[in-house]
């Protein structure tokens, strides 16, 4: 029997510490970057303090997710940790055991099948893609997909190296730290859940964004050819979105919310305009959630969803499209119909 799956709950964790874009630009003092905040739409981002790291963000997000869920930790049958950074102990990067082991033991889900997925900013969507298949085939009834991204160390490095607006590390100044977790579970209701998902890797462009740990300092750096990535991602995602719409028998204007990867306001708007030209239609709304958090890598879609849920913007039955662009270059689309989860968010002050 083939089962459908739905997003049952979402949780997030953002650090308390705030770093304002203005503060960064004042330190850099590069004339052309004065309008960085206006162009990116990022006023501030959150950053880890002492005692916080990828693992702690992921664990706290997982706990928040469980708080909004009908499941207890011991009910979880599968846990996938999908972050790029795997810091466990501030800037100590852990290769073994995988972070998913630490996360599941920390939240008390030690019976769950676990492994880590690494796929740049597409990590959590890749996790959803895998979990959906496990649920569809009845291997598991539910799966938590979780990520903690401590990426502001890349920003710290960029602050030392960016001297001109053409620096390959400029994109690192958009980054912020966050954790996110999602529980996917089985549904029998026709009008909810994941309708279709599809991914591809255009590996010819894998060199366009490279992130590494430094050899001689704690933390890492990221070098990006942002304009080229944007061009390739936008032009190549159009045929994929067309295919997804065809499979689901929908038109682009029947999508209520498109949530793209949160990079910068300018990129999102120019992408949205390109889509509007290609389709001759616009979706209900293109979600931008950059102002207070910046680009939080693999967690960005779910941070945006969480905030929209808490602001009561979504309603049951809304068609939501997650558009995923990540280094690789990975292009992915997840189309799903919002469920009664909307009733479990936004009621607290």
């Amino acid at each position, binding site marked *: 029997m*083939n089962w459908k799956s739905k997003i049952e709950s979402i949780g997030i964790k953002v650090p308390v510490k705030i770093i304002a874009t203005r503060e960064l630009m004042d330190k850099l003092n590069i004339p052309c970057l004065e309008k960085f905040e206006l162009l990116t739409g990022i006023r501030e981002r959150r950053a880890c303090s002492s005692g916080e790291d990828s693992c702690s963000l992921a664990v706290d997000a997982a706990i928040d997710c469980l708080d909004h869920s009908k499941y207890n930790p011991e009910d979880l049958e599968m846990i996938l940790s999908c972050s*790029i*950074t795997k810091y*466990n*102990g501030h800037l*100590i*990067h*852990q*290769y*073994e*055991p*995988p972070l*998913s*082991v*630490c996360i599941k*033991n920390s939240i008390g889900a*030690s019976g769950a*099948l*676990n*492994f*880590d*997925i*690494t*796929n*740049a900013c597409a990590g959590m969507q*890749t996790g959803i893609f*895998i979990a959906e*298949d*496990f649920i*569809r*085939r009845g291997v598991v009834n539910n799966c938590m997909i979780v990520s903690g991204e401590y990426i502001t160390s890349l920003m710290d490095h960029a602050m030392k190296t960016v001297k001109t607006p053409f620096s390959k590390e400029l994109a690192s100044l958009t980054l912020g730290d966050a954790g996110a977790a999602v529980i996917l579970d089985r549904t029998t209701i026709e009008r909810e859940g994941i309708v279709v998902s599809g*991914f*591809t*890797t*255009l*590996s*010819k462009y*894998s060199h366009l*964004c*490279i*992130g*590494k*740990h*430094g*050899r*001689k*300092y*704690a933390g*890492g750096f*990221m070098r990006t050819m942002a304009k080229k990535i944007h061009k*390739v991602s936008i*032009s*190549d995602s159009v*045929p994929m979105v067309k295919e997804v719409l065809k499979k689901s028998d929908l038109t682009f204007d029947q999508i209520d919310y498109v949530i793209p990867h949160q990079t910068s306001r300018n990129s999102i708007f120019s992408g949205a305009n390109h889509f509007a030209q290609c389709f001759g239609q616009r979706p209900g709304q293109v979600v931008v959630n950059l102002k207070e958090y910046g680009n939080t890598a693999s967690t960005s879609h779910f941070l945006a969803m969480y905030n929209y849920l808490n602001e009561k913007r979504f309603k049951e039955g809304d068609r939501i499209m997650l558009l995923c662009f*990540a*280094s*690789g*270059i*990975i*292009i992915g689309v997840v189309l799903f119909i919002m469920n009664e989860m909307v009733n479990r968010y936004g009621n607290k002050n």
Partner: protein
Amino acid sequence: METRIEMVAVSRPVFSFTSTGSTGLAVRAAKRCLREAGIDPGKLELLIYTGIYPDDYLGEPAIAAIIQERIGANPQSLYDHKTNRKMAGTTFSFDLNNGGCGLVNAIQIVDGFIRSGRIRCGMIITGDSEPVRGLSDSFHFTPAGAALILSESFNGEGFIHFKTDTHPQHENAFTSQLVFDSKKGSNKKHNLLFVKQDKSYLEWCINCTMNSLNHFLQEAGLDLQDVDLMITSQSPEGFVLGLKERLNLGDRIVTLNGKPEAELHTAGLAFALRKAWEDNRFKQARNILLLTVGSGITTALSLYRNRN
């Protein structure tokens, strides 16, 4: 529909005195695997890389994406913008990390996508090598690469059962971490890869494996005597011989000779599989048990059934 192993290939550095990174070793094994299977790389729809230690501490993109490009598995755009035509095939790539058990977890994923009809052919690749030569403490794994091609099967041959367990009481029995080494007064400050293995790790690995194996056989409705061939992880050193002795398996467990093979990490299972493939034991056996163990402590097992 089942998922069968189409081919397995492995690689080791040609010259021991030159540094061959894990990605290079994985690419070499992948190309060899494609060549020996007679499969065009464009047929691969899913690529999963299960190595743990990326060259030069790469964090993104996924190593699988780099390998996808280097073996020529549909690296191009989806769409030919000049002719407005869709290109023939697409490949999706990502990395999976689960210590010495990642390979079996990746097989389970590929098997699932094949059973769901989403793909027809996938490849799992892995590579082990010190990320930066000389900048580690106690990194003892043998440099190696391996690749497996899996494809759909309609004759009953293929994987039939999977099981992964972790044993949380041993979470820290094996750890590897990249730590910034900033000793006061030292001019040489580096990120160092520290590998720590508890002195009881081997014994715990064998005990955990025995426990998981019993449950696995019960779930699969088998007795140990029904297992014709057992193919296992190679590390920690002494694991294969320890298991052989404990289970009294005789020749039914594949053993590799030599010190370097005893320290094969994520590629260890594939090396044993390749040996069984070459000496025809794989084809002759009916029930084949793939068994991996690694940090966590995690065990991942899978049963493969030949048609004979």
